[in-house]
């Protein structure tokens, strides 16, 4: 079943992106070297960047369609986004960061859900701290929890491990795999590291210089290890 259908064009200076792909349940990897347009695509899915042309659909919902003049603003898309650098709010505690999405969308407090996510990510001991005092790995776990607790229909992860050293990468990956297997939320996962995607992805969209060059399974990761060291 197709959950997300993307068909967009965007010109940024001399860089031209034209991408068309579909994502199903599970983890769809956007895989390619730096500068191939991966982050540009997820920003357009999130609504942070407006495509020049095309459509973005989620299930039956049209999120963007320039011909029909539809462009749902990011705060009404219901799409969770885990950024490369975490982007936790420095003026809020970890608990307040986690609770931010729920408060902004006006959902009632759901203690059971909160506890579940906190347990899944092992962040119970961090709740009263400020983001500044967290390690890189802790920060990224909180960022994942924050995105999950807004109850997203889709989760975007943009190089969630790129800012971490290899020890912390190994620390986060099992959480992401648990998330894939337990949460049922479809994910779009951006990375330039084949080894990381081999463990987490269920479908691979390969990008080069702003274009989709191949769509398929994990076998697409094999001939492209040269994209970057782990």
């Amino acid at each position, binding site marked *: 079943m197709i959950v997300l259908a993307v068909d967009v064009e965007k010109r940024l200076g001399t860089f031209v992106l034209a991408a068309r792909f579909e994502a199903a349940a599970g983890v769809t990897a956007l895989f390619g070297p730096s500068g191939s347009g991966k982050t540009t695509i997820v920003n357009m899915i999130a609504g942070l960047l407006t495509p020049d042309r095309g459509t973005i659909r989620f299930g039956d919902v049209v999120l963007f369609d320039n011909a029909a003049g539809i462009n749902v603003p990011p705060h009404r898309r219901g799409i969770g986004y885990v950024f490369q650098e975490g982007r936790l*709010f420095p*003026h809020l505690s970890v608990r307040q960061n986690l609770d*931010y999405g729920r408060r902004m969308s006006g959902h009632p407090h759901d203690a059971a859900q909160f506890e579940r996510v906190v347990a899944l990510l092992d962040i119970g001991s961090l709740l009263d701290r*400020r983001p*500044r005092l967290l390690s890189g790995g802790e920060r990224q776990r909180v960022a994942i929890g924050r995105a999950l607790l807004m109850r997203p229909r889709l989760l975007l992860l943009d190089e969630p491990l790129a800012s971490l050293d290899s020890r912390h990468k190994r620390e986060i990956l099992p959480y992401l795999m648990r998330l894939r297997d337990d949460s049922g939320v479809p994910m779009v996962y951006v990375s330039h590291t084949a080894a990381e995607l081999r463990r987490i992805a269920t479908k691979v969209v390969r990008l080069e210089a702003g274009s989709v060059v191949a769509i398929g399974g994990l076998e697409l990761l094999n001939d492209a290890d040269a994209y970057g060291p782990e």
Partner: protein
Amino acid sequence: MLGLSPAEWTAIELSLRIAIVATACALPFGIAIGWVLARKEFWGKTVLDGIVYLPLVLPPVVTGYLLLISFGRRGPIGAFLADYFGIVFSFRWTGAALSCGVMGFPLMVRPIRLALEAIDRRLEDAAATLGANRALVFLTVTLPLALPGVIAGVVLCFARALGEFGATITFVSNIPGETQTISAAIYTLLQVPDGDAAAARLVLIAIVIAFAALIASEWFARRAGMRFRGE
């Protein structure tokens, strides 16, 4: 009380009231203009920038005179406000608050603008993906992150308003009980032969108030800073 005459108490009370009202009324405009200058590019931005900072470089007497001809009873804005809203500035303490607010405004806008420019806009994007509309993003992310700048702007504007003399005396004169602030009272006392002792008392009070404001602002700024450092 404290050996001060009722007239002196009146001047103190008036100074504080004028400075507080001037700062409080300037604050929403200061945040709005600071935001526009920090975030928006538009034709005429340089002109707006210039107008905002004009009271800082103009002689205060000139600013006071400009206020008089525009906000006085016969001034176009003053006549309009008096006729339709019953708001009168000339020779009232409200006029003193207006001139103090105008004089303090550039000092308020500048730190607010700088603080807004320094904010990581990507945090605002993150808030939007978490379901916050633009107003909520501003209230829950932008404004709290700019808080140290807002506090600095409030303190500078309040200090300027408390000490304002030239524009105020030009615009609303020096009327005891209505527009005579501590500064104006000191000036008046120094014009009479035996006013030195009374003036010295008011000078002392001005110093005390200034110190208290500084300490209070330091305390607020430290508290705001602490929230970011996670203490």
